[in-house]
C-alpha cells in the first residue's frame, strides 16, 4: 500500500512525520481561517445583520431622546451615541463568534477535529480569539461606515480607536471562549448572553455619560471593564472621555491578559473539553 502511494505520486517520498518548529503555524493558520470563513460564509447574518440592528438603535434613540438630550460631553447626542453603538456591536459579535462556534462544535461533537490535531492550547486559544476579534473589527468597520452616512462624525484619535476596537473585540472574544467551554447546551449560552453580555453592554455607558449615574453606581461603574472599552473607544472618536485615557489602556490590556490566561488554562487542562 505504501509502495503504491510512494510510486504513484511525485514527491510522495517525503511521507513520514512532519516536523515544525516551536509554533505549528500551518495548524494555527488553518484553525484561524476556518473560524473566519465560518462567519464570512454567512456574512448576511454575521456582518450585515448587526449593521441593520445598530442603525435601528441609533434611529430609535435619536428619535426618542434627541429632542430632550441635545448635547452630551459637548457633542450632539447622535455623535455621542454612534461610537458607543459601534463598539457594542463589535463586542456582541466577537462574543457570538467564539461562543457559538465552541458550543455548536461541542453539541455536534466535531470539537474533536480541533482537539485531535497537533495544535496546543495556546495556539487554539489565540486562533479562536483572533478570529472572533476579526469578526468584531469587520463588524465595527462596516457599522461605522454605514453610520457615518447618517451621522457624520470625525475621528479625533485613530490610534485610540483602533486600540480599543481591537482590545474590546479581543476581550469579548475571550469571554466567548470561556463561556463556550463552560456551556453544555445552547440554553447556557442564551443565559450568558441574557444575564451577562446584554446587561453589561447596555448599562456601561453606551447610551449615557456615567457622570449622570447617582452614587454608588457612579463609583461601581469604574470597576466595570465594559465601561473602559466603551469610554476609551468613544474618547478616540469624540476626543474626551469619562476616565483618563491611560487608565482605559491599562485596564484593557490587563483584562485581556487575564482572560487570555484563564482561557488558556481551561483549554490546557481540558476542562469540559476532554474526558
Amino acid at each position, binding site marked *: 500500500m505504501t509502495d503504491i502511494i510512494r510510486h504513484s505520486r511525485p514527491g510522495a517520498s517525503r511521507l513520514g512525520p512532519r516536523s515544525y518548529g516551536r509554533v505549528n503555524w500551518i495548524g494555527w493558520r488553518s484553525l484561524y481561517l476556518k473560524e473566519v470563513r465560518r462567519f464570512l460564509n*454567512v456574512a*448576511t*447574518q454575521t456582518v*450585515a*445583520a448587526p449593521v*441593520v*440592528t445598530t442603525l*435601528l438603535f441609533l*434611529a*430609535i*434613540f435619536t*428619535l*426618542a*431622546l*434627541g*429632542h*430632550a*438630550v441635545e448635547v452630551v460631553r459637548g457633542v450632539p447626542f447622535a455623535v455621542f451615541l454612534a461610537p458607543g453603538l459601534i463598539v457594542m456591536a463589535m463586542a456582541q459579535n466577537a462574543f457570538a463568534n467564539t461562543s457559538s462556534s465552541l458550543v455548536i462544535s461541542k453539541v455536534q461533537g466535531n470539537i474533536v477535529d480541533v482537539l485531535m490535531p497537533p495544535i496546543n492550547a495556546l495556539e487554539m486559544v489565540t486562533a479562536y480569539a483572533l478570529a472572533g476579534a476579526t469578526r468584531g473589527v469587520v463588524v465595527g468597520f462596516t457599522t461605522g461606515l454605514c453610520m457615518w452616512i447618517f451621522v457624520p462624525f470625525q475621528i479625533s484619535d485613530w490610534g485610540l480607536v483602533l486600540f480599543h476596537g481591537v482590545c474590546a473585540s479581543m476581550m469579548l472574544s475571550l469571554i466567548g471562549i470561556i463561556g463556550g467551554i463552560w456551556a453544555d447546551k445552547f*440554553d447556557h449560552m*442564551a*443565559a450568558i448572553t*441574557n*444575564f451577562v453580555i*446584554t*446587561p453589561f453592554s*447596555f*448599562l456601561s455607558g*453606551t*447610551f*449615557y455619560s456615567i457622570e*449622570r*449615574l447617582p452614587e454608588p453606581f457612579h463609583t461601581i461603574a469604574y470597576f466595570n471593564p465594559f465601561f473602559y472599552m466603551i469610554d476609551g473607544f468613544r474618547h478616540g472618536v469624540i476626543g474626551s472621555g469619562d476616565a483618563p485615557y491611560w487608565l482605559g489602556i491599562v485596564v484593557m490590556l490587563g483584562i485581556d491578559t487575564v482572560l487570555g490566561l484563564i482561557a488558556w488554562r481551561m483549554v490546557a487542562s481540558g476542562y469540559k473539553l476532554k474526558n
Partner: protein
Amino acid sequence: MTDRAADDRPRAFATKGAPQIRIFRLGNVLGMISLMRREALREYRWFGMAVVGPAIQAILFAAVFTLAAGDALARTGVDFMAFIGAGLVISAVMQRGLETTGYSLMFDKLESDGLNDVLSAPLNTLEILTAYLVNGIVVSLIIGIGIWLCLFLFGLGLPQHPLATLFFMALAAGIFSLGGIIGAVFSAKWDSFAGKETFIVAPVLFLSGTFFPITAVPDGLWRTIFQANPIYYLVDGFRWAALGYGDTDPLTSAGIGLVVFAIVLAVAARLLSTGYRIKP
C-alpha cells in the same frame, strides 16, 4: 405470542364494531386541540428563556432610557416611561408572535418530520391555521403581560381601557403569528428566516413608533413613510388603550389592524392550502 395477537384482534374489533370513517361536522375540533397542545408543549420547553430574554431586554431598555434622559424628559411633562413601557410591551408581543409560529414551523420543516404529521392529519388549512394562531396569540399575551408586570417598576400603570388593550395585543400577536407562518413557508433555511426577522420585521417593528412619538420624525417624506407603516396604527391603538392617548382615532387604528389581519390570514391560508414549498 402471535397466536394471542391474532386472537385479540378480532375480539377488539368485535367490541368496538367495524372500523368506520370518522365524519367531522363542525370542523375537526379534536385534531385542532391536539395540534394546539403539541404547539403549547413545544413552547413550554423553551418557555423560561422565551420569557426571561424579552423581559430583561425590556427592563434594560427602560433603565437606559431613564438614565440617558430621565430628568430632561421629566421637564417635557409627558410621562415618558409609560410611553416607552407601552411600546416595549407591544413590540415584545409582536416579536413573540412571530417567533412562536415561525420557529415551530421552521423546526418542523428542517429538523424533524413533524410537518408531515400536521399535513397528513385530517385537518384542513383553516383548522391548522387556527391551531397555530391560537397558540401564537396565547403565548404572546402571556409574554406581554409578564413584561407589563416587570415594567411596573418603571412606572407603567394599569391599562386605561383593559378590554381594548387585550384586543390590540391579540390583534398584533395574531398578525405577527400569521406573519411567522408566512415567513417560515418562504424560508428554506434557518438563516433565511433569521434574515427576514432582521432585515424586514425589525425595521418595520422598531420604526413604528414603539419608542418615539410620530412628532419626533421630521415632517415631510419621512413622516409619510412612517405613517404608511400599518404597524404604526397598531402600536398607536395599543398606546391609546393602555395609556389613554394616541395620535390616531382608535377605531381607525383597529380598522387598519383588522384589514391587515385579514390580508395576512388570506395569504397564509392560500400558502398552506396550495402547499407552496411545504408539500412535495
